Structures are given as C-alpha cells and as structure tokens.
C-alpha cells in the first residue's frame, strides 16, 4: 500500500475513535443520570421547595434550587453580556489594529478563563467582606459574572476575528462610523456566534457550584430579593448526594436530570429563535 493511503487510514480511524470516546462518555453520563434519576422524578421535585426533613427522605422538591439557579445564571449572563460586548467591540472594531495592548487583554482573559471557580468563589467572598454584603443572590451573581466574563469575551472575540477586513471597509466606505459598523454590521454578522458564546457562558454559570458556595449560600426558600441567599442546582445535587439516605441520593440524580434538561431547553430554544430571526437576514 502507498504511504499516503496508510496515513489516510490511520487518521480516519483516529478521528472516529476520538469522536466515539466523546459520544460514548456523553451517552454514559446521560444514561447514568436518567437511569438513576428518573425513578425519583416527580411533579413534587420540580414544583415544591424542600419541606421539613427533605434531606432525610421526607417530602418536598428542589424548586428552590431550580429558581435559584435560573436567577443566578440568568442574572450573571445578562450582567456579563453588558460588560463583554463592549470589550469585544472595542477589541475588534475600535482597536482593529494589532497592538501589544489587545494581545495583553486577550492573554489576560485566557488566563482568567483557566482559574478554578473556587478561586472566584474566594475572591467573591473577599469582595463581599469588603462591601459588607452577606451571602446573597447579588453576591452570587457578581461572582458568577466575574467567572463567565472571560469565557464570554473570548468566545465572542473568536467569531468577531473571522469577519473579513473588507466587510469593515465596505461599511466605512459608505460613511458608517465605527459605532454604526459595530452595531449594524459586526454584531449582525456574528449573531449566531454571539448566541453560542452566551449559551456557553450560561451553561458554565448554571453548572458551577464552587463559586456560589460561599457567595450565594444555600437556602430552602425561593429568594424574593437580591439580598437574600439563593440555592442552586449543583449545590442541591452536592448536598443530596452527601446524605446516607438512598432516597435522597436518588433525588440528587433527579436534580441532575432537571439541570441537564434545563440547559438543553434553553440551548435549543435560543438556537431556534436565532435561526428564525436570521432566516432571511444574513
């Protein structure tokens, strides 16, 4: 056999194996959650907060954590978007030229991306002490925002970098300012990528336990203001798995199933809406 044919074969097998490993682990995780969690799924799980003795196997649900997680992840995603989008536009439209400054910003963000979330949790906690905040929804949202900003900016940045220079020049040559070019051309061109960046960030925020442990705390109630503590699904899973009661451990898997479905629903629906919005636009 010729050398290039062997190469082709080897790489073909390698790619398939790699893809297979990814798919298999995903299916394995999902199967475990469904298999162990589904028997404990009930309407109570999603519609009630924990009642007395919930963690000992008595009645109740994790509505507190579902709502808490949505508040935390939703709030931090929106807040992060307001900070990330201007940074991304600054890097890509206003400061299109290569400079040491933008390289510095990008590498700083890459380092921030790699910092473990427990460090963000500790950092958030020191911020809380500084400003005299208690464990609260607000403190949780701020900490999560810090955690996901690097992810959101770099994910958006990568798609903006793919815009050809000629498109910017086309917009400028029509007399558009940089602001008009940013809002009317750059964002529009990269909208699907921006939505993906938002989703990745939301997924990270909704799934993170360590950064909200000290900052948002945990409670059996649904928070009614920003200054109250808020529960979250990852922590709910953690606490339930930590009990010796099999019933409660099963509910932990059911909570994981809820979390997975939540992310799936948000991801699918936002993709659907962007697609529909863009259908006749790009």
């Amino acid at each position, binding site marked *: 056999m010729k050398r290039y044919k062997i190469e082709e074969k080897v790489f073909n097998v390698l790619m398939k194996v790699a893809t297979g490993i990814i798919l298999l682990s995903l299916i394995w995780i999902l199967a475990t959650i469904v298999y162990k969690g589904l028997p404990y799924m009930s309407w109570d799980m999603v519609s009630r907060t924990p009642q007395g003795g919930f963690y000992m196997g008595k009645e109740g649900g994790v509505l507190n954590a579902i709502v808490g997680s949505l508040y935390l992840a939703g709030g931090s995603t929106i807040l992060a978007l307001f900070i990330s989008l201007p940074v991304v536009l600054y890097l890509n439209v206003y400061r*299109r*030229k*290569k400079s040491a400054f933008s390289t510095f910003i990008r590498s700083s963000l890459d380092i921030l991306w790699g910092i473990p979330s427990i460090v963000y949790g500790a950092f958030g906690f020191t911020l809380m002490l500084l400003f005299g905040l208690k464990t609260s929804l607000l403190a949780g949202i701020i900490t999560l925002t810090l955690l996901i900003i690097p992810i959101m900016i770099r994910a958006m940045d990568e798609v903006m970098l793919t815009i*050809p*220079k*000629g*498109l*910017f*020049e*086309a*917009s*400028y*040559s*029509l*007399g*558009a*300012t940089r602001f*008009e070019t940013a809002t*009317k*051309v750059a964002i*529009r*061109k990269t909208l699907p990528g921006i939505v993906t960046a938002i989703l990745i960030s939301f997924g990270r925020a909704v799934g993170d336990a360590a950064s909200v442990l000290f900052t948002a705390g945990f409670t059996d109630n649904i928070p009614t203001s920003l200054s109250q503590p808020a529960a979250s699904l990852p922590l709910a899973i953690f606490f339930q798995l930590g009990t010796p009661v099999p019933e409660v451990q099963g509910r932990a898997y059911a909570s994981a199933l809820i979390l997975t479905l939540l992310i799936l629903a948000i991801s699918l629906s936002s993709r659907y809406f962007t697609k529909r919005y863009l259908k*006749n*636009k*790009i």
Partner: protein
Amino acid sequence: MTAKLKMSQSDAACAEGSICINNLNVYYGDRHALKNININLPTRSITAIIGPSGCGKTTLLKCFNRLIDSVDDITVTGQVLVDGDDIFAPEAEVTDIRKRMGLLSQRPYPLPMSIYENVAFGPKLHGVKEKSKLNEIVEHYLKEASLWDEVKDRLNTPASRLSIGQQQRLCLARGLAVEPDIILGDEPTSALDPISSHHIEQKFLELKKEYTIVVVTHILRQARRIADYLIFMYMGEIVEHGPAKEILENPKEKRTQEYVKGIIS
C-alpha cells in the same frame, strides 16, 4: 510665500469632484510605500492606475477615502484635496469624506442583511427615514447598477445568496446610493467571471458622465478598454501619467514601455 502660492494654485485646479494630490508620502513602518506623489486626477472620466503588484496602487487608492487609516503602523504626509478640502487635515470628518466616494473592492462584501437593506444602508445612515423615499432610492440605484430586473422579486432575501457578479453590482448600487462624486475601484473585476466583468466595465463607461472614476487594475487590456487617463506606478512612484492613448501607444519612460509590452509585470 511660495508654499502659499502653490496651495492656491492647486486649490484653483481642484474643481468639484476632482482629486488633487500634493507631495503624498506613505510609510508602512520603515517601508516607503508611496514616494512624493503629485498629480491631479481629471473629473468625469475614468482614471486607471496600473503597475506591477506591490507598487502602491491600492495604497494610493486607499488614501483617497482614508481607509488607509486602519492599516497598522502607517504614516501619511502631504495633501490629498477632494473638492478642494484636504482630507488629511485634522478637522476633516472622515465619514463625510467617505460619503463622497463609492468603493468597489476586489471581492464584493455584501453587508449581512437583505438586498434591500444593503442599498438602503447608506441613505439610512445619512438620515433618510421615509419608507417611500427609501423604496425609490433602492429601486433607482439597483436599476443604475443593472441589477433591478434580476432581484426585484426577492429584495428581502439575504444579499449573500446572490452570485458573486450580482453581489459586485449590488456593492456598486450600494456605493452609488450614498450619492458620491467619486467612484473608487480596487481591481473591481478581479474576482468576477468575464460576463460580470463586462457588466461592470460597461457600467463604468456609462457612469463616467456623472462621476469621477478611479480604478486600480492589473489587467492592461481592461485599462485599454475603459481608461481615459492612465497612471503608471512602479515601486511606490508615479513613473508616467497622461491620457490613456498616449501612455499605451507612446510611452516615454523605459519602465512604462517595458510594462506595456509585458516585459515587467
């Protein structure tokens, strides 16, 4: 005193819609990309800038609408007068300058929106709001770019679905819709098939009655077909310029002769 005199002379020569360049020098970092360019471009005719690749044709063109601003590490000295205004003067409004020029680039870059929105983009930026007026503008300039009949039933489909030749004509319509005096073309047919190229060339010949057109091209035959006035550049300098016929048939400089004969390219 002499400088002042020179200024007023060039001002007088710079009629509406014309481009006058005085002592223009451009450096990319240390590289001297354009060397002492001095030329007045004739109005309402097609000027073609020819020369081998890397000779500074596109750089010169990009000075006219200050797209050169966005290049890394650039230094520009000298004057470019458009309608008598120095566009590199500190008080010059870059968006106003660009509004006066339509640009056709090497490849068409349709904006990420519908065909209609592409043409309406410029007028909307510059304050046209009424729907009926916009409809008129869009129809008028699509006709002007001979694209109307092909797209009138699908104005709301994305511009990216058009063929590349149609996209280039859309870019022309889009550029004309901001009502410029000058049309700049940076090898505008290099990505197009022969029929689409022909379309664009014909369009230029029609448009030169109303617009000053400057085209960068590396196709000598194209220059021969459309240009009234020729500028031959080599290594960042203008070697020779004059009426197209003269340059093509009777080049004075040795380098021009060689280029026209195809010895250097």
